[in-house]
């Protein structure tokens, strides 16, 4: 029997108002416009587990990440972490305690560190904010410990962010995220700004830290190969919905949803096996006016009548799920 999951996200939805200003709407006779960035997303993350959300630009994966850490209120749905609802107002005090237990790592290590603060101050900030140390000496000792943990030297704390390379800065971001002893890290494209050899260092570090500290990750990426390397389970997103979610090995052994299949085909083949590839035709539709029915149907070679009418529900079978009429009907 597994324990209760650490993080439970259910039916998460976020709508952005992208209307023109009121006067323009009146003059041009336009209605309000809404963009449904995330729609009905549900998943659970167990302790010491890594769930990855993968998708192309505009799939809503970063919006999910921001709602899970509490940076963006959802339009509907809930995020529950260890039994506490992130967005329920009356439990504000409990939520405050929850904040210490989850942290975030961002994509751009250049933009996410204050250039005017020394590194030790950057890392000490959460320790002080959550009152996790009793004296300045204790803070300093903890900062040194964290820097060592991520592969830097305690003396690096006296330097400014610009003195470090991209990979080293991402290490600083990880040290800062770990400074409040979190259990859960949300990582939004943590290595996409880095070179491959540096990416390998950071991915290895993140896996070592997970083993040592028992962390759970929500890992957001557009790179299927990186996700394959990091995740225990993978959710594939397309235009705001999860179209398929499955344990990592099973997803790669036999993708079910047409979008997942085509996405894997589109990956450049380093093995140079010369396998035939079906390119994905067309482009991601405009999310303000998504196609009716299944959002993927205009690009899908398996689309049939129901796909143009009904949005398919995520149907679970053998511990994995896909949202596709053709899969449900046994056509593929």
């Amino acid at each position, binding site marked *: 029997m597994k324990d209760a999951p650490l993080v439970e996200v259910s039916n998460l939805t976020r709508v952005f108002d992208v209307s023109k200003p009121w006067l323009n709407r009146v003059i041009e006779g336009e209605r309000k416009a809404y963009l449904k960035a995330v729609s009905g997303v549900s998943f659970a993350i167990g302790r010491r587990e890594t769930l990855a959300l993968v998708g192309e630009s505009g799939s809503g994966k970063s919006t999910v990440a921001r709602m899970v850490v509490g940076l963006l209120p959802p339009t509907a749905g809930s995020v529950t972490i260890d039994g506490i609802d992130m967005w329920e107002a009356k439990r504000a005090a409990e939520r405050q305690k929850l904040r210490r237990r989850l942290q975030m790592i961002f994509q751009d290590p250049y933009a996410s560190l204050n250039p005017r603060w020394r590194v030790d101050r950057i890392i000490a900030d959460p320790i002080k904010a959550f009152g996790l140390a009793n004296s300045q000496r204790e803070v300093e000792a903890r900062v040194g410990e964290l820097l060592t943990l991520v592969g830097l030297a305690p003396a690096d704390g006296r330097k400014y962010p610009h003195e470090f390379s991209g990979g080293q800065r991402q290490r600083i971001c990880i040290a800062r995220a770990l400074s409040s002893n979190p259990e859960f890290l949300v990582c939004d494209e943590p290595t996409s700004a880095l070179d491959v*050899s540096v990416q390998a260092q950071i*991915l290895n570090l993140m896996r070592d830290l997970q083993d040592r500290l028992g962390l759970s990750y929500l890992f957001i990426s*557009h790179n299927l190969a990186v996700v394959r390397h990091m995740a225990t389970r993978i959710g594939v997103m397309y235009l705001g919905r999860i179209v398929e979610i499955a344990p990592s090995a099973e997803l790669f052994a036999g993708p079910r949803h047409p979008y997942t299949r085509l996405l894997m085909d589109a990956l*450049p*083949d380093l093995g*140079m096996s010369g396998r035939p590839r079906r390119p994905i035709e067309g482009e991601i539709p405009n999310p303000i006016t998504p196609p009716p029915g299944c959002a993927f149907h205009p690009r899908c070679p398996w689309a049939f009548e129901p796909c143009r009418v009904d949005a398919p529900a995520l149907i679970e079978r053998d511990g994995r799920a896909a949202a596709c009429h053709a899969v449900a009907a046994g056509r593929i």
Partner: protein
Amino acid sequence: MSEPVLSVRNLKVAFPTRRRTLTAVDDVSFDIAAGEVLGVVGESGAGKSLTGAAVIGLLEPPGRIVGGEVRLSGRRIDNLPAEEMRKLRGRRIGMVFQDPLTSLNPLYRIGDQLIETIRTHADVSEAQAREQAIALLQEAGIQGARARIDSYPHEFSGGMRQRVVLALALCAEPDLLIADEPTTALDVSIQAQIITLLKRLCRERGTAVMLVTHDMGVIAETADRVAVMYAGRIAEIGPVRDVVQRPRHPYTKGLMGAIPTIAGHSSRLVQIPGTMPRLDAIPKGCAFHPRCTYAFDRCRAERPEPLPAGNSRVACWLVADNPAGVSA
């Protein structure tokens, strides 16, 4: 053997600074034949983009070519006056950059930009040029080209813009196309479309392509030969299959192992310790030796030249002694 379209010999690019002169591209040599795609791959700061910029004479001052030569179909072009070089660009050498928005003028309709380019290089009427432009856009995979030719760049998506840029680069039927990270800003599904298109258009025309990218996957899909650059020098150059599947240089080996693949199981990735040296601190001898697990005394003292090893040329003392390559 026919003459290569592009021949670069001992190219050296330097940036003079107040204190000292920094050498960003050092002694780089390669050829590209007609219809061939040479991939130039490396991490940030390896000098791959500068090599491309030097070939087309678009180095940002104070950077300049301080040694070696560049020949286009046998004719030396690195010492041409700026005005003659300008005529050569576009006509004989096409260019595609990473961000399609910076290559297109946002204030002009794409049709006007194509027509202007076509008429600069060929003596045709406005109407003829327009027909050519429509045909080119169709060939580049833009549906309804006749209707969309009068659109502005912002009315196209990123992938469509890159198709327009590709059409623009190829409209004068150049002999050489320099593509600098042409798919880096695009999503995977669109990236695959653009790579396929680039390959098809250049094969049909027999255009030589210099494809600069950091993405080994794109190289494996597209290139015939590949040059791996490190700290301004070529570490290894050879047929793409040899370099990708049987890399000989320790840096290439490390780089290939560091790339997560969907085929590989989720074990640890190969890790190259450290980072690429900065231009003002390139170590003596082999530039890679401080990060190389196989380094020995000679690597620290003497700089290796790219020497033949199998079908490749590899700049590594271990490979020079043992052409089969370093056994990992």
